[in-house]
């Protein structure tokens, strides 16, 4: 272990030791027909941590993220979120209504494809407001001001807050998605390839925004990407997935600088 890895461990260790995980998944398995998308995956995410999930296409990382967002139910598995005022129970036992309310209040998500996360023909502020409306906010002025605050935090130009996402660039659409995701200050922010498809300069701006939000608000994030550069920039800890299973996990510096599994070595060297 080199000096840099060691210092990263020391930096992260007190936080990991001090807090119980905010997210715990155990034994997650999911098959789609003959395809085994997840094989007994265990994941924990700690408060304020950024967990990166890497792997090639079809490795199961997006399926895992969908499970975290309660969009799908596994064949086997236990999923718990440590939330204030909520009983500790397997979230897959919740009915559809409870899942939707939990998602609306505690989990934010940014999709790779903005069409999945945004209503393209409604205003940008309206897209943010919709999340607040689902959570039960019924004051127009409060909706307006909260949408403004969330868009501002995402570094979206407020002069265009009523522009429709269809009229915006890809980077701006991602900022609207981000504003929508953080509007209710979620306990967990899920990022599914948030910068894929953006040019490098816009990628850097979006990542800067994410890093600033993480630093200022200590939001717990799970970041899925096949771009190791993005993961390396953002993540505290990394899990590497292949064929639906976790093949390696550890602190980001450790995994990138001293990969143990042959597949991780192949990934890292292919990137470098």
């Amino acid at each position, binding site marked *: 272990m080199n000096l840099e890895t060691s210092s990263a461990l020391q930096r992260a260790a007190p936080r990991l030791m001090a807090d119980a995980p905010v997210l715990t998944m155990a034994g997650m398995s999911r098959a789609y027909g003959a395809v085994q998308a997840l094989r007994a995956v265990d994941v924990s995410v700690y408060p304020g941590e950024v967990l990166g999930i890497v792997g090639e296409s079809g490795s199961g990382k997006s399926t895992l993220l969908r499970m975290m967002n309660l969009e799908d139910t596994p064949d086997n598995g236990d999923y718990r979120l440590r939330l204030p005022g909520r009983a500790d129970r397997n979230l897959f036992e919740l009915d*559809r*209504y409870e899942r*939707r309310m939990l998602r609306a209040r505690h989990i934010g998500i940014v999709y790779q494809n903005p069409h999945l996360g945004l*209503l393209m023909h*409604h*205003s940008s*502020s*309206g897209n943010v*407001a*919709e*999340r607040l*409306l*689902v959570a039960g906010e*019924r*004051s*127009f*002025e409060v*909706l307006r001001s909260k949408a403004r605050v969330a868009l501002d935090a995402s570094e979206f130009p407020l002069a265009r807050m*009523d522009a429709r996402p269809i009229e915006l660039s890809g980077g701006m659409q991602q900022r609207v998605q981000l504003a929508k995701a953080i509007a209710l200050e979620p306990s967990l922010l899920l990022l599914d390839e948030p910068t894929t498809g953006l040019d490098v300069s816009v990628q850097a701006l979006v990542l800067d925004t994410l890093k600033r939000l993480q630093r200022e608000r200590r939001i717990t994030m799970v970041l899925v990407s096949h771009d190791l550069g993005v993961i390396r920039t953002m993540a505290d800890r990394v899990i590497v997935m292949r064929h639906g299973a976790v093949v390696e996990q550890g602190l980001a510096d450790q995994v990138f600088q001293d990969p143990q599994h042959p597949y991780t070595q192949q990934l890292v060297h292919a990137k470098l």
Partner: protein
Amino acid sequence: MSLATLTKPWAATSYGFLDASAKRELRRKMLKAVAVPGCQMPYASREVPMARGWGTGGLQVTLTLVNPGSVIKVIDQGADDGVNAASIRRFVSSVSGAAQTWDTLDASIIQSRHRIPEEILRENQVLVLQVPDPEPLRDVESNISIARQMHADADYGKLWLTLYEQIVRKGRIMQGASYPALVNGRHVITPSPIPRWDVPKLHMSKHLTILSAGREKRIFAVPPFTRVEPLVFSDRPYLVEDHAGLTCQRSGLSGFFMNELPMDGGGSRFEVSDSNLGIKAIRRTEGEPDGIGDTWYRNGEYSA
């Protein structure tokens, strides 16, 4: 002993055009609709001697409810003397033996297209509203299966969002008729294309309201004494049409919902939309007893 002596005369029990099994299905669906206020119940909408879109849903409900002792009133946009209203009223009466009336207070069943009478309805009256499009989520979700799922989940965020967008774009809520309303705190309905003026009349009303869409094959209901709350933001009050200051040029009534009649050379004149109320008011000016009952609105203000 012949078969004829063992059976009851069929004419005494067979009335109302629809066959017994059709009426039984409609009765069951109406009971379900009353049991779950605002929830749309699918039914097998039958053929009736009228084109789809002309009130076949309302007609089937009326034909199921009617009996020879009923008194039937049919209005079209508030008027008793419209061709469609008169045809439906005569048809229902001819196939059931029910009496016909124009007077809201005399009727036991009131079938209406797009209005609720201005006089307060009683417990023993049933209002049947014709509904062209029963799905309030149609504009935000075109897939009917998903829309039904959204109702099941009380997922009305997108519907609220359309109201938010109207205020953002236009400065106020532009929705006129078919204003979405939450029934019993659970299901959002379209109260049929009645004007905003009429929606408060459904809230905690004494009468039963049944809404039926023949083409779309859906029945839903607002039982008596049930909450019906238009979707409004807490800081944007619900507004009805600004008719309080208008005066009917035929009857002299004011403070009720008016029809606007454009005149040659510009300008408009107004006539009270509830035609029977106008007739009663004219009768009053001629010195006859008017027979006007209590009204939901007084001096243009909702007061019931």
